[in-house]
């Protein structure tokens, strides 16, 4: 075997390794560093660099540098369109002596001269310059042959594709980030709109100001306590905020009546769930069930609710959550014809109506949330902010809730109370 055959075999080995390196999902910087090693090692080149072209800054930025010293510039500016066009002509090794006509070569000539750079290879993919390879002298001291240049072009093509792929990935990541930001903005706009709607609904009723907002918050708390994910919890809170949107069409005097309304007025008021559904249904919400929550938030498990008198399993789960949040807020705020009810009474009401009006698992989740805050396990003060400190510090409230939780679903509170380390024994 002659020396040319040996060189060919050695170069093919390097080319095969380069292909493997580039198709592997390695760190990009490391891939380029290894590629430069393979190219240098294939032909015994003493020094060199691989640069990526930035089409925004019109610069060649060094990605990997071998034996060029600290003083070699890490960024080379391509100042004119002519030189960019010249380099983009194709993947062909340019002798440094020929490249001296390029303005950027004149700027960096001293660096290139000092480092005995001999070849500049523009990396061109789909007629666009993506980078460049700079190569110094061969260890043999011989000039580059046409055979060497063919090998360099073949390997340069691989390196160019690797850079182009990386640029594409970076572009996709950038676009994806832009989309994410756009989505966040839209989401924020949607939530602001939802809150504005909630405020508009609440404006109609001076006695229950903030009701929709509070129901939204209680609904969110219940969803969190049920272990729902962030998106589902957010959807639940939206359902809470908008549950009374149908009241926008109910006469203000009925909503604000400072007395128990009569049957006719009651029939008018009771239309608001169906009207709310009609308003919300045509809107494309990012969350499902928002219109259904508005329509069925006055249904009861025992079938005595309205508008359709649905039974337990016929009622959408989100509507059951909103029902509890809505009822809880009604009981814990002052109304024109009655004051807010004491906290202990409210817990008793939830207990008594669990399985009749309210779904037991939802009552359990809600009371667990309150209990966590009372026991100090949850320091977010979510309920204190909504109900007031005095109300939350009602004497005996924590014990009442603990008892109720054990009554409702013994395993849940036992586990919780034991885990929280409150009391010596679980209460049965």
């Amino acid at each position, binding site marked *: 075997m002659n*020396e040319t055959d*040996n*060189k060919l075999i*050695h170069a093919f*080995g*390097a080319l095969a*390794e380069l292909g493997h390196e580039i198709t592997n999902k390695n760190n990009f910087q490391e891939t380029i560093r*290894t590629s*430069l*090693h*393979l*190219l*240098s*090692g*294939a*032909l*015994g*080149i*003493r*020094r060199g660099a691989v640069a990526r072209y930035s089409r925004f800054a019109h610069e060649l930025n060094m990605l990997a540098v*071998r*034996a060029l010293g600290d003083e070699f510039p890490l960024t080379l500016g391509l100042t004119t369109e002519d030189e960019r066009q010249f380099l983009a002509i194709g993947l062909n090794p340019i002798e440094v002596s020929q490249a001296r006509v390029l303005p950027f070569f004149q700027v960096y000539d001293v660096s290139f001269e000092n480092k005995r750079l001999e070849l500049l290879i523009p990396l061109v993919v789909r007629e666009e310059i993506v980078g460049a390879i700079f190569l110094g002298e*061969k*260890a*043999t*001291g*011989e000039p580059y042959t046409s055979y060497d240049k063919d090998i360099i072009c073949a390997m340069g093509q691989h390196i160019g594709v690797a850079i182009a792929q990386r640029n594409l990935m970076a572009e996709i990541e950038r676009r994806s980030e832009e989309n994410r930001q756009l989505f966040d903005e839209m989401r924020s706009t949607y939530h602001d709109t939802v809150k504005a709607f909630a405020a508009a609904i609440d404006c109609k009723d001076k006695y229950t100001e903030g009701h929709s907002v509070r129901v939204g918050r209680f609904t969110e708390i219940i969803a969190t306590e049920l272990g729902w994910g962030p998106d589902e919890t957010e959807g639940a809170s939206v359902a809470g905020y908008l549950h009374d949107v149908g009241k926008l069409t109910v006469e203000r005097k009925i909503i604000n009546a400072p007395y128990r309304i009569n049957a006719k007025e009651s029939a008018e008021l009771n239309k608001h769930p169906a009207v709310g559904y009609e308003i919300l249904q045509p809107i494309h919400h990012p969350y499902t069930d928002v219109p259904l929550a508005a329509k069925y938030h006055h249904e009861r498990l025992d079938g005595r609710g309205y508008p359709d008198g649905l039974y337990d399993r016929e009622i959408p789960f989100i509507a059951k959550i909103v029902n509890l949040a809505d009822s809880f807020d009604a009981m814990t705020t002052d109304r024109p014809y009655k004051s807010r009810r004491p906290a202990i009474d409210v817990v008793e009401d939830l207990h008594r109506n669990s399985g009749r009006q309210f779904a037991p698992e939802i009552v359990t989740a809600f009371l667990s949330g309150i209990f966590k805050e009372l026991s100090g396990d949850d320091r977010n003060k979510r309920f204190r902010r909504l109900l007031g400190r005095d109300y939350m510090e009602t004497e005996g409230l924590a014990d009442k809730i603990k008892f109720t939780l054990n009554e409702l679903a013994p395993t849940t509170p036992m586990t919780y109370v034991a885990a929280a380390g409150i009391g010596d024994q679980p209460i049965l």
Partner: protein
Amino acid sequence: MNITSETAVSPRVVEQTSTIFAGSYINKLSGEQIEHECRRKLDSGCKELTLDFSQTEIVNSIGISILLGVIDVAEKNGAKVVFSEMNEDTVELFDMLGLTKHVTIQ
């Protein structure tokens, strides 16, 4: 692969000569180990660095590039590089790629 040095480095002793034993296959991983060890020796003032290839059977392109890097650093440090105990194939490869022009062969 094991890369060992004949003598231990001590902060108070400057080794003028050192021998690094290359393994059977000089690729990226083992090449970088050799490079690291060579740089450490050169930084500590070594003036004659011997690379022993008695165990070496294959040197790939990355290995060649790394050895060229070692030669470059040694030249900058004014140190001499000696390649020893190379087999026929390794000599042929190093000759073909010009490495032997920059080192002393033993």
